[in-house]
């Protein structure tokens, strides 16, 4: 194989699609690797009971499901589906696919997305019943995170299941032809697939992390497309001939988090001063070239589409207080604070998101006027994730939070519960509000969309008043695709969709 995706000459024929992902997955199986990077591949090979299509929940291996009690869901399985090795999918396999994440010695990477899962049981030849530990309005999405695997195969392969060179057997439209940690992945059409036949005979994935290299690969035709182009590099791709950039809602938020347990960020005036000093308008327009919009809440409007109409969503966001860019106001706030003469602090961002670095540099330049020195450093992604996971000496952090499922409670849930102000959870502000905690529990227990919208709006309003974080901007997600292909309905959850059906020739 070749990292360049072969000679590239086959792409226009339409039988092979050459796609770039950032790096080699650890496994083509969510259990082994749950990164978006891996899921781009995995979602074509493995299917869950449900899936997403244009941000809407869709049946996949389950034809329908019922909530029989606040904590019980019954799934009816699609009949006549076989794995890529020809064996039929049994209810046994489906139950196993849930339960294997919960095993005593499980090292499943997707287990945190199955937090409320208690157990899956076979309750009929084509029926599986799932019980939860507590009511969870967002459970409906969660079967996405437990794709269906063949029990016998997984048990035989053990730890090596889905690893490079190891076996993977799924029910998706593609099956793994080869998988090397260095040379890339080749998927071949799964002839046993129950659904519509995808257009491409093969999909070749190559690993290209560096945006420059990616643009070169697109330019040369070695690669037909790639998701998630870094916003700071978009201009480079815009100039490529024969390459279309497609923009979608990322459902993400770039956010600056203050550790409210640490001086001087325990002082709301300091936090507000930061918020006023952030020139979101200018940054999103001039630096990110319009590929982002100023934000005033952690859950961007796109999240709400499934539970509220656009007018309602507008209403929600206008009701959330905001601190628009205003240096005078920032100065006023700081003057009232415990540190009126300014102070000095430092902040790190992950090297994988250069645009966060740009944002910090812009912010730092404005803070300079307030005599606040913000030292910006770039660190490797791994180190950065340790930094925020350790939950020690947080002081001030920056991150772009990405969606797991298209429901506004997704990011609210990870950011604001006081129970998440601990190690390996991401309430990085150490924000503790009894009111918000209570509202979150209510929201999760509710099954009524209007009610949930109502509660979550209240949460966001409350949080906005406390300013535990500054929501810097809502980024767009951008993908690049070469002629003759185009891509429909691109959005930030591309990795959870059967994205290959969105690719079509012009």
């Amino acid at each position, binding site marked *: 194989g070749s990292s360049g995706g072969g000679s590239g000459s086959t792409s226009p024929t339409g039988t092979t699609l050459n796609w770039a992902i950032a790096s080699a997955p650890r496994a083509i199986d969510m259990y082994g690797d749950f990164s978006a990077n891996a899921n781009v591949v995995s979602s074509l090979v493995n299917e869950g009971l449900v899936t997403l299509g244009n941000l809407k929940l869709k049946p996949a291996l389950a034809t329908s499901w019922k909530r029989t009690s606040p904590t019980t869901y019954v799934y009816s399985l699609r009949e006549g589906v076989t794995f890529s090795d020809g064996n039929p999918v049994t209810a046994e396999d489906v139950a196993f696919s849930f339960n294997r994440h919960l095993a005593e010695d499980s090292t499943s990477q997707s287990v945190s997305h199955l937090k409320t899962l208690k157990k899956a049981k076979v309750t009929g030849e084509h029926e599986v019943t799932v019980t939860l530990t507590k009511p969870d309005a967002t459970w409906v999405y969660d079967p996405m995170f437990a794709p269906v695997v063949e029990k016998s195969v997984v048990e035989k392969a053990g730890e090596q299941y889905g690893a490079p060179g190891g076996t993977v057997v799924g029910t998706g439209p593609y099956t793994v032809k080869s998988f090397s940690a260095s040379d890339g992945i080749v998927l071949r059409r799964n002839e046993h697939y129950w659904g519509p036949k995808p257009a491409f005979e093969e999909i070749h994935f190559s690993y290209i992390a560096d945006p*420059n290299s990616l643009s070169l690969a697109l330019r040369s035709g070695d690669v037909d497309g790639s998701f998630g182009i870094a916003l700071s*590099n978009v201009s480079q791709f815009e100039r490529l001939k024969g390459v279309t950039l497609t923009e979608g809602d990322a459902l993400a938020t770039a956010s600056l988090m203050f550790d409210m347990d640490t001086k001087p960020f325990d002082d709301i005036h300091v936090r507000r001063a930061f918020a006023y000093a952030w020139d979101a308008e*200018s940054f999103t327009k001039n*630096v990110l070239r319009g590929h982002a919009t100023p934000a005033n809440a952690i859950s961007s409007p796109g999240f709400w589409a499934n539970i509220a109409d656009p007018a309602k969503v507008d209403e929600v966001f206008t009701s959330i207080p905001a601190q628009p860019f205003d240096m005078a106001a920032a100065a006023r706030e700081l003057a009232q604070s415990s540190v009126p003469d300014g102070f000095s602090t430092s902040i790190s961002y992950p*090297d994988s998101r250069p645009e966060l*670095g740009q944002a910090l*540099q812009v912010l730092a330049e404005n803070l300079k006027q307030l005599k606040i020195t913000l030292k910006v450093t770039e*660190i*490797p992604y791994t180190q950065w994730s340790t930094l925020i996971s350790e939950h020690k000496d947080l002081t001030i952090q920056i991150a772009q939070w990405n969606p797991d499922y298209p429901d506004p409670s997704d990011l609210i849930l990870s950011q604001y519960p006081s129970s998440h102000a601990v190690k390996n959870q991401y309430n990085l502000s150490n924000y503790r509000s009894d009111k918000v905690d209570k509202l979150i529990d209510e929201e999760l227990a509710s099954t009524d969309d209007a009610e949930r919208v109502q509660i979550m709006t209240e949460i966001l309003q409350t949080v906005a008043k406390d300013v535990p974080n500054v929501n810097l901007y809502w980024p767009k997600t951008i993908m690049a695709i070469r002629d003759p292909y185009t891509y429909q309905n691109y959005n930030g959850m591309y990795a959870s969709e059967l994205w290959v059906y969105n690719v079509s020739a012009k």
Partner: protein
Amino acid sequence: MTEILDAPTTVPSRRPGRPSILVGLSFLVIALVVVCAIAGPALAPYSASAQDLTDTLAEPSAAHLLGTDDLGRDVFSRILAGAASALTGPLVIALGAMLIGSLLGLTAGYRGGFTETAIMRWVDLMYAVPQLLIAIVVVGVLSGTYWEAVLVLIVLTAPGDTRILRGAAIEQRGLPYVEALRVLGVPGPRILIRHVWPTLVPLSVAQTFLNFATSLVTLASLSFLGLGVAPGAADWGRMLAEGRDLVDVNPWTAIAPGLAIALTAAGFNIAGDWLHERLAGRGKDRT
């Protein structure tokens, strides 16, 4: 074969003290960089960090000689401001290496015995793995800052100086003037410091210039890999790495720092070579 027949019979001992145009230019470049390092911010039309978000990635114009970068900062001003960091790091490395190298090299060469063995084993260890690679591993693994990178490079550069000075010291140790001083009754440390070292200073200085050039390139390489320098700093290596992404829009964001690095390094290399040729042979002015 006429070409080969034209070969030199012997090479004239180049008259020292008459630098070529190239050497002159090198010293000019060095002088220029030094001036920028000292007075760069004062000379620059803009502050190196001043942003103008309404004028990002502008092409060269009268207002911005080399255009602006992604945050609307003036590239020309940043190049001028970058001279300071381009000079200080390599300078500290080269001088540090010279100091350590002289100390260890002279001691090893003059004392011999166990001291020499210990020092030279250390040097061998440092030589067993490539310099830049170690720097990458250490700085990368520790996510070191610029100054940590500088520190690592001092440690990695010093063995070269040590080796050279030890060789020279061994050579000097056997020379009659050192033996004469011993017979005269001059104490060893004094011979080393007052007689041998001054003789080797020119060699050291020439080596320091070469080390400077190497360190400049190495630090730039580290910056290119995102190691050491803070983002947004007016550092040539970092600017080149960041400019690489913008080369389509304003190529000067990459070309200018690249040229600055290459020219400065070339300047120091040429000057170092010239000094080597001119100074290192001093003390044995016949033969």
